[in-house]
């Protein structure tokens, strides 16, 4: 496979920076907007990989709908920036960073050698044909081989619509439990 272009490297760095901002920022609004940045740069990266249809779906659905929904909800709830240090959280943070780092190291160790052998076997000089990546090939697959998952996803969407309507309509009774006591 061809060496990565400079544009792809810039996009990768941008996506990584935005992803780090999502996790590290204390202000949830900035986190949500960084998430939008990550998803958008990922869509652009798909364009450079010549997966035009997937890139368009990524930008329309992910960056256009899901992350805007996130920004909307964060602004609706008017969340305050979180406190930096909360007592008793240090073990969780250490555990989380260890889990992420060990996952990364293990996956990199197991995947990268396989990728190298891929590169030896690889004869494709680059560029997908229109037939392999276009909407036609994807939709033929979705309607033949992946028919059952496709239909189940439709059911899932229907169920989630119903769940959102139910959750949005009903007002839950106020809770008087351990949370109120903890606040004092």
């Amino acid at each position, binding site marked *: 496979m061809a060496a990565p272009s400079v544009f*792809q490297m810039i996009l990768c760095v941008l996506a990584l920076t935005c992803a780090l901002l999502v996790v590290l920022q204390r202000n949830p609004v900035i986190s949500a907007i960084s998430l939008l940045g990550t998803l958008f740069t990922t869509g652009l990266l798909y364009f450079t990989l010549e997966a035009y249809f997937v890139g368009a779906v990524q930008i329309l659905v992910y960056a256009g709908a899901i992350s805007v929904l996130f920004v909307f909800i964060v602004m609706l709830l008017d969340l305050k920036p979180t406190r930096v240090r909360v007592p008793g959280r240090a073990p969780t943070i250490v555990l*989380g960073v260890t889990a992420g780092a060990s996952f990364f190291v293990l996956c990199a160790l197991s995947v990268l050698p396989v990728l190298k052998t*891929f590169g030896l076997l690889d004869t494709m000089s680059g560029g997908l*044909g229109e037939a*392999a990546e276009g909407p036609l090939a*994807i939709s*033929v697959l979705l309607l033949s081989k992946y028919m059952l998952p496709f239909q189940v*996803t439709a059911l899932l969407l229907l169920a989630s619509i119903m769940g959102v309507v139910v959750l949005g309509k009903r007002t839950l009774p106020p809770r008087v439990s351990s949370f109120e006591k903890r606040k004092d």
Partner: protein
Amino acid sequence: MSELTLIVGLGLCLFSIGIVGFVTRRSGLIALMSLELMLNGVNICLVAFARHHNSPEPSALVMLIVLVAAAEAALALALFVALFRQSGSVDLDDYRMLKG
């Protein structure tokens, strides 16, 4: 470094950052955003493999993942809005009554 290594490495990095955010952040909304980051990392790897193998099958999987992510985000955000209306907090630490 080949293009495939760069893109798969980016996907791995996004997934790991998502794990760290999901475990360490207290806000439920940020945990949800980290979940989206993890799904996005998987999608990046799938698109890279689709290009490498010149096959449309990973792209079909990407479509299904995007649909599931959309359903999950909508439902979880509605859940957090309901929780916020009930007790004024989306901190996951405040909802520990299932812990026993």
